[in-house]
């Protein structure tokens, strides 16, 4: 089995949308026992990256009304699966449901860190200055939460 995975998601050319990539870049090689990776892929493209892991942690940008940009919230949700109208519509939770149905080795432990961002994003290969200033703090929070979670689940030795 592969080690637990921390996956940063987002677009590298859409400014704050890519905050998950920046957080993972800041944590590369700094979370003992955890593989850290970045991706902007969607849908089935992620399947082979996330299977055969004891735990999966995802950090991604999210627009949530009332949340200050840069604030982090943890999401856990049961996977569902809906009818699609485009091959671009295979979302993360749909992917988890598909993997489960097909008896693939899906990670039993999944936590998603949503980093609140402003709704309006524009093309840029840099984060907005205010969010950029918070990346290290967000990374520290994510790292600590991952270690605590793995410790609680008895997965730190992996």
């Amino acid at each position, binding site marked *: 089995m592969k080690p637990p995975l921390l996956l940063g*998601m*987002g*677009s*590298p*050319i*859409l400014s704050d*949308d890519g905050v998950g990539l920046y957080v993972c870049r800041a944590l590369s090689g700094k979370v003992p026992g955890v593989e850290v990776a970045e*991706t*902007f*892929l*969607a*849908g*089935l*493209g992620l*399947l*082979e990256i996330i299977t055969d892991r004891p735990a999966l942690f*995802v950090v*991604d*940008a*999210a*627009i*949530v009304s009332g949340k200050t940009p840069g604030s982090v*919230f*943890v*999401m*856990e*949700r049961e996977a*569902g*699966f*809906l*009818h*699609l*109208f*485009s*091959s*671009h*519509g*295979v*979302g*993360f*939770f749909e992917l988890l*449901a*598909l993997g489960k*149905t*097909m*008896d*693939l080795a899906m990670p039993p432990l999944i936590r*998603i860190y*949503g980093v609140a961002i402003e709704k309006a*994003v*524009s*093309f*840029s290969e840099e984060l907005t200055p205010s969010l950029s200033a918070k990346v290290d703090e967000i990374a520290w929070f994510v790292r600590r939460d991952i270690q605590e979670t793995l410790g609680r689940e008895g997965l730190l030795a992996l």
Partner: protein
Amino acid sequence: MARQITINPITRLEGHGKIEIFLDDQGGVEDAYWQVVELRGFEKFCLGRPAEEMPRIVPNICGVCPSAHHMASVKALDDLYSAPPTRTARLIRELEYNAFYIEDHYIHFFFLAAPDFVMGPEAQPAHRNILGVIGKLGTEIGAKVIDIRKRNRDIIRLVFGKAPHPEGGLPGGVPRGITEEERETIIKTADDSVAFAMFALELFKDLVLKNEKYVDLIKSPSFSLATSYMSLVGPDNQMALYDGKVRVVDSDGKQTALFAPTDYVDHIGEWVEPWTYIKLTHLRNPGWHGFTEGPGSAIYRVGPLARLNVADRIATPLAEKERQEFFTVLGKKPVHATLANHWARLITALSAAEQNQRISREPDLTSKDIRNMKLSLKKVGVGCVEAPRGTLFHHYETDDQGLLTRVNLIVATQHNAAPICMSVKKAAQGFIKAKKPREGLLNVVEMAFRAYDPCLACATHHLPGGMPLTLVLRDRQGELVEVIRRPEEQ
């Protein structure tokens, strides 16, 4: 904590499609629009950058189909630097591009087309999905799809780095060669891909062609649209995916244009409508006459069905046999049945797999001559490929230093935007006869949309995958009758 979850983090920034259907006083459909409400601005973002950065940047436009943008970009650089690839480089690029086609087309068929035909178009959405398909046909089918996709993605990774997010494209060549040891694996993948393609086609025939109701649905006038068609063709007008001339046939199948991709501006007009962020396109000859079909219309379609309607033949034997059967069953060229895109997609995937069988056995594939280094900046470059969803153009202009001064992209969903509007309207008019249509009837309308597999990320050059759709029904006074969202709001 669970109470906080109101969004899907992957789809929180997605392009937003909206189908708006206006009903008349009798409850029939008066009009229908497919709207895209999103930003543009990608081209502007690129200006001032070195042109060589484009193959790294453009795959980021879309998290699902990056290989097509990457290849069009690399070919634009070939043209910009007057550096055609060496024979081996071209073989390697075609190998990668065919592998991409295989993985792309099977997602569409098994995830989008199959649920409608396996579960039935009127089945409840909770069951009408890939999980329903797997439940009915068995998990081994899903495993086969994932295995063949993974192995073709391995080819993409081998040639261009991170799969399926290629970024190693170079003007005049490819970043690495193929070894004899790697050739063995590629041959096995290509052979198995052909076997899988034949399996998928047999499955389609069993599920769809043997069911009279489904064949009637495909042939239904409500799913037919008499347009012109555009795609790339190679020598003798054979179907081409990686390179060729652009051919256009009219709604009667007569050739109306055959041109080099560099001349696209002379043949394709672009304009903006206030109700959508997609720049719509039309044929300059015969010129814009509005959203009309039939002879004289400037509306044209691209994609799998267009490829079969435009090409006179397919170079590979198994796919050519299937092409002939396609027209025997559905009628003479051009076939205007929008749902025939599904069958055409499977035939294209078979052809791509057969092409990789040939390429994988080419002696020159493992040559070290992988880069043409004679670069000469000519300040304008156009790259064109047949993307899975249709003909894709990348047009770059630079200053004397090779810094971009103009970027223009025309993607499949732009070509198809007007036909999608028209297809949705026809399907809605054909199937919605009451103010409160049943869920299954609305899905039939969506089927017209789904057959094109549109990509809003690509069309607006903006977003990485994910794409919700809102279907709005209004009465003649504009009052809301019903709103349906896909995915349903969490």
